[in-house]
C-alpha cells in the first residue's frame, strides 16, 4: 500500500469519531480549520522550491553527533524530510 493510502486510511479512521481514537467532532473541526488557515496563508507557496539554493546546516543527530549538510553533499545528493515530532 502507498504512503498516501496509509495516511488516508488513518485520517478516515480518526475522522469517523470511532475507536480507537474516539475523536470528538469539535476537535476534528478545529484541525480542519487550522489546515485551511495554513493553506490560505500561502506559506507553502513562499517556502524554498525547486531551483532555489538550499541553506547549509550543521545539526545534532539523535546521538548528539554534529552532522553537516556540506559533508553529506560532498558524497552525493541529499534527501531531507522535515517532520513535526515523535508524537
Amino acid at each position, binding site marked *: 500500500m*502507498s*504512503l*498516501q493510502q*496509509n*495516511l*488516508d486510511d*488513518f*485520517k478516515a479512521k480518526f475522522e469517523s469519531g470511532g475507536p480507537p481514537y474516539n475523536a470528538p467532532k469539535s*476537535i476534528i473541526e*478545529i*484541525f480542519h*480549520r*487550522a*489546515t485551511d*488557515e*495554513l*493553506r490560505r*496563508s500561502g*506559506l*507553502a507557496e*513562499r*517556502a*524554498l*522550491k*525547486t*531551483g*532555489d*539554493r*538550499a*541553506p*547549509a*546546516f550543521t*545539526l*545534532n*543527530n*539523535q*546521538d*548528539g553527533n554534529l*552532522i553537516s*549538510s556540506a559533508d*553529506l*553533499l*560532498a*558524497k*552525493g*545528493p*541529499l*534527501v*531531507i*524530510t*522535515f*517532520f*513535526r*515530532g*515523535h*508524537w
Partner: protein
Amino acid sequence: MELEALQAALPDIQRLGANLVAICPELEKYGRSVHRRLTLSFDVLSDRGLQIASQFGLAFELPDYLKTVYAQFGSKLDEFNGENAYRLPMPARYVIDTRSVIRSADVSPDYTVRPEPSETVRTLQELAKGKA
C-alpha cells in the same frame, strides 16, 4: 508513517549514491526515541528553535485555539521543542543536488498529505542519469 516509508526506500536512495536525513524541531532525546522506536538507519537531526526550518520557509506558529487542543492531547510542544512558542514546520521533502540546488520540493500545508518515496527515488534516478 512517512519515516517508516522512507526507511523502506532507503536502500534505493543509497543505491543511487544519495543520503537521507530527517529534521525535526524537537530536542535530541525525542529524536532518539523516534529513531529507536522505528529502528531507523538514517539520522534524525534536532533543529532547535526551528532555525533550519525557518530558512527553508517552513516554520509557522500555531493559533491559540490549536495550542489548547494540542495541550489537551498531551502534545506539549514547549517541552518537546525546548521553547515557549508553539511552532512547527510544515511537512516537507526536498532533494538537493551536490551543488546545493534544490531539485525537488514537496511542501504540504495539509499534514495528512505526503509525496510517495517512489517519487523521491525517481528524482534521484534522473539526477544520476544527468550525471552519467
